[in-house]
């Protein structure tokens, strides 16, 4: 993992100090573009992901759909989600490669309480640093896409790394490399947006009037983007959020609550101290003891 230290950080979880890369020229933002209209659902990307990341997905069961496994797991960082979309006499098979979207404003990182357990490199990739992960599951609550999975074995959180270890040496992610139809592209974010533009023009010319790019602004854009045939309705694609954003509850919890709480505690402590200094202790007097003796005595007499 020592190569990881070569990454420059843009953000670091639970850290109020400027990350090491502050003041340095940032890397060019990268992005993966997944063209759903070109995906044939072969799952080569899933296999490549398992292989490159040396993950072991135990054999499960089939639930009657093509989704296999049926959900993301600590080993399956990407899963093809198949949707049969019927409209009129038409049936469309929408196949979406699910996985971490690498939000530009990552909710997982915002929610994480462990310093340096989640980082964002200057190229935009969001990565989990397992060494620092404490397994609390806050990232699950922070994520607008329901991506991180906590291992029952190691109690650590796992998700797609966007093959940060490949990207740092100039390679495309394993999934992009393996895709036989080039439905997965990888490059600078600007190039990917430009390329998506061409794909969308093509799709529109073929009758997909609502074709478009999924690069949701609620999380300041993502470093994994989709070309969707029906970009007006992302939720058609196995529940892809229409307007993802970090939950306001997480915003409160990780925002105003932190300084206000410490201020309230500090104030209570200071109030007590000042009260003691100005008003002094509340003491039992000789007179009280005498009265007590009187009452106790008289009652007992």
């Amino acid at each position, binding site marked *: 993992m020592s190569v990881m230290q070569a990454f420059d950080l843009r953000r670091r979880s*639970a*850290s*109020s100090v400027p990350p090491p890369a502050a003041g340095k020229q940032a890397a060019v933002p990268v992005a993966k573009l997944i063209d759903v209209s070109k995906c044939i659902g072969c799952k080569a990307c899933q296999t490549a992901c398992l292989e490159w990341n040396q993950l072991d997905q135990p054999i499960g069961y089939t639930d009657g759909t093509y989704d296999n496994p049926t959900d993301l797991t600590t080993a399956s960082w990407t899963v093809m989600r198949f949707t049969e979309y019927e409209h009129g006499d038409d049936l469309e098979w929408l196949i979406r490669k699910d996985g971490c979207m690498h939000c530009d404003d990552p909710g997982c990182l915002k929610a994480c*309480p*462990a*310093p340096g357990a989640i980082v964002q490199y200057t190229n935009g990739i969001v990565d989990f640093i397992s060494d*620092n992960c*404490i*397994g*609390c*599951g*806050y990232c*699950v*609550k922070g994520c607008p896409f*329901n991506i991180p999975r*906590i291992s029952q074995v190691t*109690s650590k959180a796992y998700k797609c790394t966007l093959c940060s270890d490949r990207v740092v040496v100039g390679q495309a992610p394993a999934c992009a490399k393996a895709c036989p139809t080039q439905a997965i592209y990888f490059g600078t974010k600007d190039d990917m947006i430009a390329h998506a533009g061409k794909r969308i023009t093509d799709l529109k010319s073929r009758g997909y009037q609502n074709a478009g790019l999924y690069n949701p602004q609620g999380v300041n854009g993502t470093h994994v983007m989709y070309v969707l045939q029906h970009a007006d309705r992302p939720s058609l694609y196995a529940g892809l959020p229409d307007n993802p954003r970090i*939950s306001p*509850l*997480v915003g*409160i*919890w990780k925002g105003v*609550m*932190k300084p206000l*709480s*410490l201020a*309230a*505690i500090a104030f*209570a*402590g200071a109030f*007590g101290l000042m*009260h*003691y200094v100005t*008003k*002094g*202790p*509340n*003491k*039992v*007097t*000789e007179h*009280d*003891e*005498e*009265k*007590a*003796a009187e*009452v*106790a005595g008289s*009652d*007992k007499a």
Partner: protein
Amino acid sequence: MTVHTKPVSRYTTAARINHWITAVSLVLLALSGMALFHPSLYFLTYLFGGGQMTRILHPWIGVVLAVSFLGLFLRFFMLNLWNRDDTVWMKNLGSVINNKEEGLPELGKYNAGQKLVFWGQSILIFLLLGSGLVLWDTYFASYTTIDQKRLSAVVHALCAIGAILIWIVHVYAAIWVKGTLSAMTRGSVSGGWAWKHHRKWFRQEVGKP
């Protein structure tokens, strides 16, 4: 010459043990909870053996607190029911804070401030237990939705801050009002203390054979 009255028994040994188990677990919960709540306090995780251990231990200490506090609740809730004198006492809170208790109604075992601490902690610990179970992913992750977990995180943090504030009031009151601490260390208070602060209770106590 100092008058020495016979100490008045205030808490049984069992009640004191019950109290101190609650007290220690509450302090440990506050420390471990604050460590995971604010990054600036993350260093507190070292007290518990690191981040992972803090995450593992915190909910278990919470279970100890919940059980222990239930014991305190059952022991004392009857004595903490609100009455008319408590309302009068609360209206004169300013005098109390200024160390001027003369002219206040004679009180039973607890004054209104103590009762508010009791009910405040009862409600908050109940909410902390509920929201805490929702957040205890190791065993209960699959029972709730992510939105419920998010709400629980906010409720848990809010209630924890409330409980810490009440705890500060509770501890400060024991420092401020001299002669109080012995009630929880040795189980008794001086007659003068009982006469001054809880006269109705004192009369009942000495009235006993």
